[in-house]
């Protein structure tokens, strides 16, 4: 009985609303909604063109759907005065609902917005070798809510976009070239200038040790056990690691082949003998 009454009331309300709506209002609603659809179409097409090479298709579809319905809802909002409906009750209910949804989906929205900004800013791209916080590896996917990283050990790591966006990102291959350093100690007995020339020759023979910026080899420190040579080499970012791994062995073997010693840590120990044990001083050179 109660249900029947409510249904009758709703029918009456709708009838009253329809009776209030005039031809002008219907035209206005139609025009506003058509404009909203056109704007939504233009915006989503623009997004497709601009983001199709930056985003995965599934993510782009989600973004486009959200944008589409947001614009349509805005259109309905602008058209609502022509419906002659009192929206005050709806606004209160909608406000409460918005607060609840807002709290519930806070992190989702945060990740979503961060994902949008990451796509626009593009601090990294798929395949890049990066570090985000304590995660280091290659970027596998940049999705709308998270970024997938494959660590060097082959482990799948999902990093929420909010964390990516608020963390320091080190992209090791973003620049076309990068530098790496070696520090090599040679014996005090050996000729440092000769060692520098030998190292320069080895670097010159390496195709990916860049000619410019010029590689630097110089005596950087007179250490406890050795003269420390600092070697600075620039390489294409995609080749630097292979070069770094192979070149050090070449330098070591070539230096040794040329009679230049890479010494162990050494310490000179002076022993003061007591009078009973004899006069004078002996010294011992201990090498470990």
């Amino acid at each position, binding site marked *: 009985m109660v249900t029947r009454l409510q249904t009758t009331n709703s029918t009456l309300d709708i009838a009253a609303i329809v009776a209030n709506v005039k031809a002008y209002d219907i035209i206005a609603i139609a025009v506003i909604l058509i404009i909203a659809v056109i704007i939504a179409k233009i915006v989503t097409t623009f997004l497709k063109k601009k983001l199709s090479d930056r985003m995965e298709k599934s993510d782009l579809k989600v973004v486009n759907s959200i944008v589409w319905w947001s614009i349509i809802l805005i259109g309905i909002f602008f058209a609502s005065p022509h419906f002659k409906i009192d929206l005050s009750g709806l606004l209160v209910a909608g406000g409460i609902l918005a607060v609840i949804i807002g709290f519930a989906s806070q992190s989702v929205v945060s990740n979503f917005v961060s994902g949008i900004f990451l796509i626009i800013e593009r601090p990294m791209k798929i395949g890049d070798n990066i570090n985000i916080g304590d995660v280091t590896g290659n970027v596998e996917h940049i999705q709308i809510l998270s970024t997938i990283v494959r660590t060097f050990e082959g482990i799948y790591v999902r990093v929420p976009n909010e964390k990516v966006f608020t963390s320091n990102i080190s992209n090791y291959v*973003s*620049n*076309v*070239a*990068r*530098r790496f350093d070696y520090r090599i100690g040679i014996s005090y007995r050996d000729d440092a200038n000769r060692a520098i020339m030998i190292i320069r020759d080895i670097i*010159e*023979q390496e*195709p*990916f040790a*860049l*000619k*410019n*910026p*010029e590689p*630097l080899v110089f005596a950087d420190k007179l250490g406890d056990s050795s003269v420390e040579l600092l070697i*600075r080499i*620039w390489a*294409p970012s*995609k*080749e630097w690691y292979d070069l770094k791994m192979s070149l050090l062995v070449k330098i070591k073997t070539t230096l040794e082949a040329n009679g230049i010693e890479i010494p162990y840590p050494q310490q000179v120990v002076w022993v003061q003998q007591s009078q009973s044990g004899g006069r004078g001083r002996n010294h011992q050179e201990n090498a470990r």
Partner: protein
Amino acid sequence: MIQFTVYGTYDYSCQLREEEISIDVERSARYLTYKRTCMGKSAERTIASEKGSIIINPVEPLNLPKEVTRYLEVHFNPVFIEPETTLQLYLTFPVEIGVFIRAKEDNDLLDVFSPLSPKYSLYGPPDYGRVTRWHESSIYPGVPKTDPLREGVLDLTLINKGKTWIEVSRAVFVNAGMTIWYGDYVLMSARMELYSNMVAETKILSTPGKNGMTRSISAYSARKVPVVEVVPEKVEFLMEFGLGDTIADN
């Protein structure tokens, strides 16, 4: 000129020897075996083909030890050019030897090698500069003597379009299928328009070589990277990081 016999078109029974290079194609019952040695390094490929040809010609020096860039940088002694003046000079550029297989009117790159040891450099800053294949050349008023296995002749026209003297000691070219010709020597033509000491525009020309020269198949084109055929003269490179030596920022 050095008489050179390696470049050309051969059938599947070719055996070539040239100083430190040897190329052999051997036929067995079911397939062909391509073998090459150069400076002690060797390569071998198996080919499934009944009838076709092997084409050996100089290619862009941007493939070894592996392809990391599309830019070639030629460095030379500084040249000072008067405002609104044109100067034609000859430089050298490195070449790599490309071996192509051709059958049913389709070419494919079989092998690339070179007796030269390549060297790479950076043109511009590390963040947005260009990695380049680096080559040092002398300047010649006429066509210099070169070893076509190692170097080609770069016919470079420098045009000072500015109102001031310009000093230039490097030219950077982008590879979009460099037009290289070979005959008695290897030839490539290029043009460089200078606007200031910092900015110039370069392009490789497809100007035909001398009579009797043959146009090389480009390794870039043979890889079939572009869907549409690229006209080299329409691909320009804007040198915006200077035309002279830069101080390295270590």
